[in-house]
């Protein structure tokens, strides 16, 4: 998903962040790239993702 700078500004406002104009394009490019990557991952792995738990890989007592 490609965001516009205005969308980025609104998204930032939801977490109380006021991104200065000179950084807005940079942040927009970064968030857009991450969301576009996620869309590709959903297309490739979505069904498998539905079938696993989102457990982080931090198992201090896990057996391997």
């Amino acid at each position, binding site marked *: 998903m490609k965001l516009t700078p205005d969308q980025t500004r609104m998204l930032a406002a939801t977490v109380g962040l006021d991104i*200065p104009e000179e950084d807005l394009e940079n*942040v927009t490019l*970064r968030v857009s790239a*991450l969301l576009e*990557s*996620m869309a590709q*991952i959903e297309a490739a792995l979505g069904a498998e993702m539905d079938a*696993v*738990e989102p457990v982080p890989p931090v198992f*201090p007592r896990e057996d391997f």
Partner: protein
Amino acid sequence: MQSSSTDPVFLSAAEQGRLIRDRKLSPVELVQAYLARIERWNPVLCAYITVCADAALAEARAAEQEIAAGRWRGPLHGLPFGVKDQLNTKGVKTTLGSRILADNVPDHDATVITRLKAAGAILIGKENLHEFGKGGTIEFAYGQPRNPWNIEHNPASSSSGSGIAVASGFTSGSLGEDTGGSVRSPAAANGVVGLRPTFGRVSRWGGVMYGWTADVIGPLTRTIEDNALFLQAIAGHDPKDALSSTRPVPDYAAALNGNLKGLTLGVVEEMTWPQGVNPEVAAAMEEALRTLEALGATVTKVSLPRAKYAVPLQLLTSDSDIAAMMLKQWRTRWRELDVGTRTRLAAGCLVPAAVYHRAMRGRAVVRREVLDMLGTVDALLCPTSLNPPGRIDATKENVDSAEAMQQKVLLRRISTYPFSMANVPAIAVPAGFTKTGLPLSLQIAAKPFDETTVFRVAHVFERSTQWHTRHPDLTKLAPAAGKESRS
């Protein structure tokens, strides 16, 4: 081109320790030698933010007296170590490479610092890093870290100073922190050894470890044996870290007497020969594979097609974890942060919760693929970096286009992130040099908590190739470059 491995500052920590034990090397003289080198060349290389000269000398004198009195504590007794300035040190400034923490002086030591001190090791300084321990810093608050093999080149991120200090003969060993590659990448770029241990093997307590599902602390050293000694000292359960493992810690040094016969090593095609891999990296990798086969290993090609998703999945999740912890500072001190830090982590702040949740599921899928593969081979191999260390000006992560975001942020991390995401131990070991004298590196990963196999393979390779005996010649550095680099 290189300094000699017989110079005490370039001896392995293991050898230094043996000489100190036998009272053939003075801890005081060793610390003095390192301090002299730091004084002369740190202004150029910017490896250290803070140097603990007086305290280190006092501790060295105490160690010398203790050993003379027959109270030798073990192989690290009397050896100096540096630590990434992301780990808290009692009474010593801990900046995280950020201007906003310039006056931060913790009242406690991180557990790993406590353990190294208990082993008799001596804190010599706090090492430079990308701001908050994450890559992508553009302007460094405490000076531009430079690669000692060529100061125009990048020492990699984010434990930059930790790699520079070990390679430059500024310390016997260092501790770094690795989220996606922050120990292994500087180890590779500076021609030293760097281990990302299994998450849970080493206590994170007392470090600023906001990437709570990925951040681990690991040693950077000049040899595999040194790395095993440092890991031995810091590994093990810590009640202060709820996610540290209760598994017993094996004798890592015992793994160093093995050979490669009977081991099957899988070369990950997607992480070794992707489009755009540097030809000299590819050639060094081919040579490394021939060496490992000649040493008795069975080398086979394997495929991890989902590995390519590791970088965005990690950034979507770990960057969000870190950004969430820094949000208060982001709101009030935005302009005091480096532009690379604030824009990268602002993006982390803006990842919607539903996307974060799906990315965590994606991580589980990628992790499963790596672990399944490790059920069929003893270790996985790939280059630690697909490119030799680039020029500093060319490797800054300036994001001014979608293409720059892909090339500078997402694609360059493909070699290290999949192993972080899988929570497996992975080591960077020197594997040659480019024609222009820049280090190249082999990465070896094994099953969770199987650091012994990682050390075993790496040690046999190291002994056979001897790349670790080369050291940069700092006498050729231009003093003026340091002055220019200070920000």
